């Protein structure tokens, strides 16, 4: 039983990282039907920016963790908006496939730039949480895992409140559901897409900064996480933000349980297992657990 709860909690912590990246994917997908393959590398790049803020003196002093964290979120937002404006917007009238190719180009560029600027070696990234554990009823609960879960879920909730209760959030939802009608009602949909990229970048930055302390900082650190996020998003349904979060969390817990109880599933098999889950979900419920089946009108 203790083993079960330990696997559950560490699975939830991993899962919350997948969930925030999965939500970032869904944000962009819902608005434009584009899968942003650069999402993971954007997260990685902003995590390097946080690293730079933490280690190099800027304007005479280095930042402590939380100021650097929030400053990184602001930078990530500007970065995401900027990428949409500069790279994606010129392809507004191009086909979805072309835009997807452009995000793949972004993936390559960001990956190369990070290795170029900061060298491809693994780097240690600090964690704001202590490495000690709480012991409740014989179950060791890591403070690191709890903090990771708390921070990512808090960001997701803040984003949900924004979409649910602000006028801008309403406009963004309208732009995603029916861009033409929204534009006719005076919503500037093009800029809303840029905002969506900004929020996705912020979510990515959170997932990057939360996964870096345990997985170390490197240019390829988010590639596996991105695949888990894909699998989570598909599990929950690419159309559904709630589904993406639930799918990410569920996948984290599932992989953690498999690792604990099914011995042939070694860490090397985490990715193949995620791929298998992804394929099985596509076969049985292509719209995901929370998605609706889209009927196309000819």
């Amino acid at each position, binding site marked *: 039983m203790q083993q079960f709860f330990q696997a559950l909690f560490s699975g939830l912590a991993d899962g919350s990282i997948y969930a925030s990246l999965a939500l970032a994917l869904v944000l962009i997908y819902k608005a434009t*039907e584009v899968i942003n393959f650069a999402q993971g590398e954007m997260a990685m790049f902003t995590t390097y920016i946080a690293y730079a803020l933490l280690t190099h003196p800027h304007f005479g002093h280095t930042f402590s963790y939380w100021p650097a964290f929030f400053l990184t979120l602001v930078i990530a937002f500007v970065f995401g908006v900027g990428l949409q404006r500069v790279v994606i917007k010129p392809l507004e009238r191009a086909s979805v496939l072309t835009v997807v190719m452009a995000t*793949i180009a972004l993936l*390559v560029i960001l990956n190369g730039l990070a290795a170029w600027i900061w060298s491809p070696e693994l780097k240690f990234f600090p964690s704001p949480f202590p490495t000690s554990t709480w012991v409740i009823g014989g179950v060791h609960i890591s403070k690191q895992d709890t903090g990771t879960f708390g921070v990512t879920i808090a960001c997701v909730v803040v984003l949900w409140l924004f979409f649910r209760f602000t006028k801008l959030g309403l406009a963004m939802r309208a732009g995603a559901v029916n861009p033409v009608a929204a534009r006719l009602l005076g919503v500037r949909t093009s800029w809303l897409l840029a905002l969506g990229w900004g929020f996705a970048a912020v979510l990515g930055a959170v997932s990057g900064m939360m996964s870096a302390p345990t997985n170390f900082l490197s240019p390829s650190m988010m590639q596996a996480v991105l695949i888990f996020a894909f699998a989570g998003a598909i599990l929950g349904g690419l159309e559904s933000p709630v589904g993406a979060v639930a799918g990410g969390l569920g996948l984290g817990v599932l992989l953690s349980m498999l690792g604990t109880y099914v011995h042939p599933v070694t860490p090397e098999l985490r990715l*193949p297992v995620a791929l298998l889950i992804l394929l099985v979900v596509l076969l049985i419920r292509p719209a995901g657990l929370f998605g609706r089946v889209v009927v196309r009108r*000819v």
Partner: protein
Amino acid sequence: MRSRLGYIGFAVLVAAVVVAPLVSTHYRTYQLAFVAIYLIALLGLNILTGFTGQISLGHGAFLGVGAYVTTILVVDHGWNDLLTLPVAGVVAGVAGLAFGLPATRFAGPYLALATFAIPLSFIGLLKRFPHFTGGTLGKQLPSVHSQFGIHANSSVWIYWVSWIVALVMFLLAFMLVRGRLGRALRSVRDSEIAATASGVSTAGVKTLAFGISAFFCGIAGGLFAIAVTYVNPDTFPIDLSILLLVGIVLGGAGSLSGMIFGALFVEFIRITWGPALLDLFSQVHHINTRAPGSSLVVYGVVLLLVLYIAPAGAAGLVRQLLTGKTAVAAWAKQGRTAAEDQA
């Protein structure tokens, strides 16, 4: 007229293949052998991406499957290396079919999503079963040597083997896309709804295209293993899969001859052209152009520029020069309406 141009083009290609090793150093000849290997892989991936309109970010792993089949058969079972090539192709093709069966049943972005997981999963599997694959250390093949009583330098030998296979595969790809299957592939790319209405099984065609493309990549992978004489899990990183896709776009998706440009790009951008291009900039700004990652930045930027300026790739530019008509990227047609096409 078009087909006559095609025959002339193919004859020029064969002539170039015959002449090239006579005027090249051994090292350059060895590099050109890799152009042939990448050409085979690109021809395969092009059947999926260019002709069927499905993006795959995982075909580097099918090269890996072919390479490991060849290596295991040669090292552990004592096969002649050239005889392993068909087996490498078939095993990779079957793996492609098995993967494509669930993944290609759905329209939209799901295929690209699922394929993105293949290279990393493949590396995980290689490391999980080390007694079979050699694990992280990989396996060493015997060095390249000429066979059948022919005495040639090893670079020249692998050059000829690769290019003969590549030319055969080129003709095979040509016959595939020209016939009934090719029409079915293009109909799926241009409009899945119209294809279904005309009685084309879109899922079946996509799965078949996936299998065929994996078969091509498997053969390329077998040759790759023979040429580099060493495989390990890092030989087939996710970058390779992405580079193949970049090669397709650059050469011109949906054009067979364009793949020759694509293959030249894939082989030379990393080692020769990328650094040369960066050196131009380094004379202006003092940057370290040999740093890791710099070549990635170059080919990412090149890909973006191609998407903006010449979405039909090198083949599109050539066609534009010959015919005076602006070419639209074949795979970018999906999602455009007929009215937009006419405009």
